[in-house]
Each structure stands twice: as structure tokens, then as C-alpha cells.
């Protein structure tokens, strides 16, 4: 045994340094891949943002006008004449909302998929979005409308915050119900998770419909609530952008504290625990962040399905599987996805004004099916 040990020591002294050097070099190469994907996504997002400034309901702008408008928004140069500067700013607001909502939903999906260790988890499938929408609708109902409709003027000023708060509560209740019911013996069973998700979605949709029929008396209110079920990016206010930004910032701030831990979760929760992960705290933190992100997205733009499931999945294929790269990439990939979908539909369909939820469902639905078919083998063992 001593001879063996000696040989080993020698082995270390001769080969090891170069091996270790190779090791870190290739690690560096690997580390660059998510970074490269991030750069590409960022550039793509910039292009999409500029493109979305060009296209709008009042018609397409000249490129030169778009640049002038952007410069004027930054405080450089003169604004465009007449209402055109306003148009550019409205389009920018819409794009910003799409960026925030896309980032929130993708981040939420990435976190949920990590916690549940399943790439089928997403805010809309396990009922978080529906719960948040229910919370938001309840708030809207009890305040008599969205924002300025409130009969109590002093409450109206805080309406978006109240609606978001209630959306968060609704989402949190849905999340905890799903988590509680799908957990058996410390493990989350995937079929149960999906079934509970279906049930929670159904209950939330039923309650939403009930609220709608109460709201029917008020035509405009009921239409506002209906719009919630497919989402909208139209005519959002700057206040909502700020709210979205704050929610996203808080949720994204948890990334450094849960990303590595979620990687360790991949080999099983007990295993992560043995490595020193405070599993309960990490799960709570990640679920709260996911719920908050989904809730602000829902309270600002309603339920937009599939961003939360498709975006993280694609990013996992592109940028490696570690949550340390996946979660930050979600902050870029989600926006690219939603801004892209929104731009495409306005560009291709013109004034059709399809709600983003519809477009996402049209893209996301088939993709989800593809995912199911591709994972057939894995699913057979559930």
C-alpha cells in the first residue's frame, strides 16, 4: 500500500500540474459559452427593441425618425415633430413592459423548474399565474376597477401596488397549495404536481369566471377582467414599468443565493442537504422569488402563457444547464422571446392586435407538445 501511495504521489508531481492547468483552461472555455449566448441575446434584444420602435398602430416610421426619437428620449437632440415623439415613447414603454414581463416570466419558470427538478414546471402550468390573476381580479373587483376607476380616489393612486400585492398573495397561495399537495415523503411527484396544477388552474379559472359574472353588471370592468386571461401589453403606464422593474429586481437579487443550490438539487434534495445546502430556506427563497416575478408580470400584463416554460428550456439547450448561467440568461432570453413575439405579430398581422398571450400560446403550445414527445422515454418512468 505504501508503494502504491508513493506511485500516486509521483503521479501527482509529474502529471498533475499540466492536468490541472488544462482543466482550468477548458473550464474557462466552457465558462465562455453562456457568456457568448448572453452577448448574442443582448444584441438580438437591442435589435428587436429598435425594430419595435419602428412599427406601431399609427404606421411605420422612417429609420432616421426612429434614431431621432431615441436620441430625443435620451435627452440628446430635438424631439420629433408633433405627436410622433409621443408615439415613439409609447412604443418604448410597450417594449419595456414586454422586456420586464418576459424577464419575470422566464425567471419564474427557470426557478420553478429548478425547485421542482422538472422542466415541465412553469408559472402557468402549476397554477401560479392563475392564482396571481385571481388575486389581481379580486383586488380590481373590490376596488371597483383598475387604477383610476376606484371609487376611493385616495386608494386609486396605490391601485397598481395593491393589485400587484394581491396578485403576489394569490400566486403564493397557489404555489403553497401545489407544493403541499404534490409533496409526499419529501419528494415531489411529477404526475401529482401536474394534476394538482390542473386542479388549481381549474379552481382559479372557475373563481375568475365567477368574478367575471359578478362584474358583468359593469361592462367595462368585466372586459378588463376578461383581458387578464390572455394578457395585454397595450397602453401600460410608466408607473407599471417601475413596479415591474422593482419586482424583477427583487426576484433577480435572489439568483446568487439560489442558483448553485438549485444545481445541487439536481442530484436529489437529500444529497444537497448532505452537502450543506439549507434546502428548506433555498426552496422557500426560490419559490417566493418565482411567485413574486410571476405575480408582478401577471398584475401588469395579465396571464401570458408559455414564456415561463419555453424560454428556460430553450436557454438550457443553448447555454448549458447550470442555474448559475441559466437564471441570468432568463433575464435576457425571456425579453427576446416576448418582444420578438410581440414585434412579429404586429409586423406580420398589422392592426390585428392579437393579444400576446394568443401569440405565445400559438408558439408555445406546439413547442410544449414537441417537448413532451421528445421526452417520451423519460416520462414513461414517472
Amino acid at each position, binding site marked *: 500500500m505504501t508503494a502504491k501511495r508513493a506511485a500516486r504521489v509521483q503521479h501527482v508531481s509529474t502529471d498533475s500540474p499540466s492536468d490541472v492547468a488544462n482543466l482550468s483552461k477548458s473550464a474557462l472555455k466552457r465558462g465562455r459559452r453562456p457568456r457568448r449566448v448572453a452577448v448574442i441575446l443582448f444584441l438580438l434584444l437591442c435589435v428587436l427593441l429598435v425594430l419595435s420602435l419602428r412599427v406601431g398602430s399609427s404606421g411605420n416610421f422612417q429609420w432616421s425618425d426612429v434614431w431621432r426619437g431615441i436620441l430625443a428620449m435620451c435627452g440628446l437632440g430635438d424631439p420629433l415633430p408633433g405627436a410622433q415623439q409621443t408615439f415613439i415613447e409609447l412604443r418604448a414603454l410597450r417594449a419595456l413592459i414586454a422586456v420586464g414581463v418576459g424577464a419575470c416570466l422566464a425567471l419564474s419558470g427557470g426557478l420553478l423548474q429548478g425547485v421542482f427538478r422538472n422542466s415541465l414546471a412553469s408559472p402557468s402550468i402549476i397554477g401560479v399565474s392563475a392564482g396571481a390573476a385571481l388575486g389581481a381580479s379580486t383586488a380590481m373587483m373590490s376596488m371597483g376597477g383598475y387604477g383610476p376607476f376606484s371609487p376611493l380616489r385616495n386608494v386609486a393612486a396605490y391601485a397598481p401596488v395593491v393589485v400587484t400585492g394581491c396578485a403576489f398573495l394569490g400566486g403564493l397561495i397557489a404555489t403553497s397549495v401545489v407544493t403541499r399537495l404534490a409533496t409526499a415523503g419529501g419528494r415531489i411527484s411529477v404526475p401529482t404536481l401536474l394534476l394538482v396544477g390542473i386542479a388549481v388552474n381549474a379552481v382559479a379559472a372557475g373563481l375568475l369566471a365567477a368574478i367575471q359574472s359578478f362584474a358583468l353588471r359593469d361592462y367595462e370592468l368585466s372586459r378588463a377582467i376578461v383581458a387578464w386571461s390572455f394578457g395585454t401589453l397595450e397602453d401600460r403606464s410608466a408607473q407599471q414599468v417601475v413596479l415591474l422593474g422593482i419586482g424583477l429586481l427583487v426576484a433577480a437579487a435572489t439568483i446568487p443565493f439560489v442558483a448553485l443550490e438549485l444545481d445541487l438539487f*439536481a*442530484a436529489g434534495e*437529500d444529497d444537497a442537504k448532505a452537502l450543506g445546502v439549507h434546502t428548506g430556506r433555498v426552496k422557500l427563497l426560490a419559490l417566493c422569488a418565482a411567485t413574486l416575478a410571476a405575480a408582478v408580470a401577471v398584475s401588469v400584463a395579465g396571464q401570458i402563457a408559455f414564456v415561463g416554460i419555453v424560454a428556460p428550456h430553450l436557454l438550457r439547450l443553448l447555454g448549458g444547464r447550470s442555474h448559475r448561467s441559466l437564471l441570468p440568461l432568463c433575464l435576457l432570453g425571456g425579453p427576446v422571446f416576448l418582444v420578438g413575439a410581440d414585434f412579429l405579430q404586429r409586423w406580420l398581422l398589422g392592426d390585428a392586435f392579437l393579444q400576446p398571450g394568443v401569440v405565445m400560446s400559438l408558439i408555445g403550445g406546439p413547442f410544449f407538445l414537441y417537448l413532451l414527445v421528445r421526452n417520451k422515454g423519460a416520462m414513461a418512468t414517472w
Partner: protein
Amino acid sequence: MASALKVKGVHYSYGDPGGVDRPGSVTDAVAGLDLELTQGEFLCVIGPNGSGKSTLLSLCAGLLAPDRGEVLLDGGAAHSMAPKERARRMAVVPQSLASIPSLLVETFVSSGRYAYLGVWRRPGPLDKEAVAMAMDEADLLDVAERSMEQLSGGQRQRVLVARALAQQSEYLLVDEPTNSLDLEHKLHVFAWLKRLACEGRGVIVVTHDLNLASQFADRLMLIRDGRMVASGGPSEVLKRSVLEPIYGPNLHFGELPTTAGARPYVVPWLQLGDEAR
């Protein structure tokens, strides 16, 4: 100075203990076990399937909270220690992973350093050194760049041990390390674990393999139905009077000499002649 892991009268049952529907009928997976391990000691826990060996290991590792009794690491309850503190002192080598993560071997071994990472989870030079040492120790440098999914059973086992080594803990709790390995690799793993114990770690290995246990362990502990049947040196446990009630009469006992004195062995043996007659 030397620390100690102490298990005192521990009970544990899965499901709700003393449930209303079947009062008293819930069998405890672990029913009143005592154990003491100091650094530098190699203890093997043996027993038939479902005897509660793995549950005992999880209790020792603080992953489960005992229903009754206590698991103490230097006087502190193991399951209520801060997870990171616990992981720096006790490393677990699981029998297998719930799912094989699609990580590179090096990344996987690095995860053993989790308990040492700071707020921003950035590995420092000490962490990198520990990982490199563990990989070298486990002879994994050639496969560092491979994905976990591409490894053979033996390599995977070494990766699991390497990760535990990266934890640089005082105690190593190993669950069935040789299940899917061939004879050569079995021997290799046990020899290695023994060496780790000699280097000053306290090692508990849960295993089916009575002979490997007899050859390398300082102490054996035989349990059945969550209770201790026998405990002591190999020759005190591996004898007919102890094993026959558990494994049946068809056993053949023998002895092999080692530098540390003669070690008993046992093989399942059915005299065909007896049957025929």
C-alpha cells in the same frame, strides 16, 4: 481533543409513528440503536436487507431527525446543526443519486466545497486545491472533462467519494459503496476507505459485504429490524452463533491471516451431498 460521533437510543420510523389506524403497528426502521465513533476509526454496519442500515446512516448524518434518542457530534445534536457547519464535519457518500446530473465530473466534485463557499459562492484557491487533491486522490484527472452520464459504475463511485473528500470533513459516512462493482473495484474502494480512516477520519460504511467488512473494519455492527444484534471486532461478530439466526444455517466459516491478526470470513455454502442424501 479528538471529537466523537455519538448515537444514543435512537428511534426512527417512516410515516406517522403510532398512527390512529394502526396504533403500535408502525415498525420503527431504527429502534433504539447506540453507536460511538471516534476519528481514525473504521466502522462497518452490516445486516440483511431492510434492517435499517441506511436509515441509521441518514440519522448519523443529521439528514433525518430522530423520533427519540439523539445523535450528537461533540455534544451538539447533528440534525439541528447549521447545514454548512454539519457538511464541513461530516460528508456523506450516497449509495446512488436520485438522478445523475448532467454535469462535468470536475464540476460535480467541486460541489463538495459548497459548505466552504462565501456569500457570492465563488470558489477560492483553497477550494480549487481541495478539489484538485480529491480528484487526484480518486484518480479522476483523466475523466475530469467528461460528463457524469458517461462514466462507468466504478468511476461514478469514485466520483462520489471524491466529492466527499473535497468536503475535507472529520467523518465520512458511506452507504453501500460496492453494490454494482466487480471484485477488483470492491477491494480497491475498501482499501481506499481504510486508508482514509488511517489518515485520521472517522469512517462508517454501510455494507452487505461481510467479508470485506471483516477484512478492513476495526469494528463491525450487525443490525436487524432496526436493533443491534452484535457489535465488536470481526471475530466477535462473524461467528455461527451470531449469523445463523439471521442468514440461515447454510454458511461456511473460515479464517485468513492478515498483518493485524487472523480475520474470519463467511461464505454461503450449501452441501449438495447433504441435499441429495
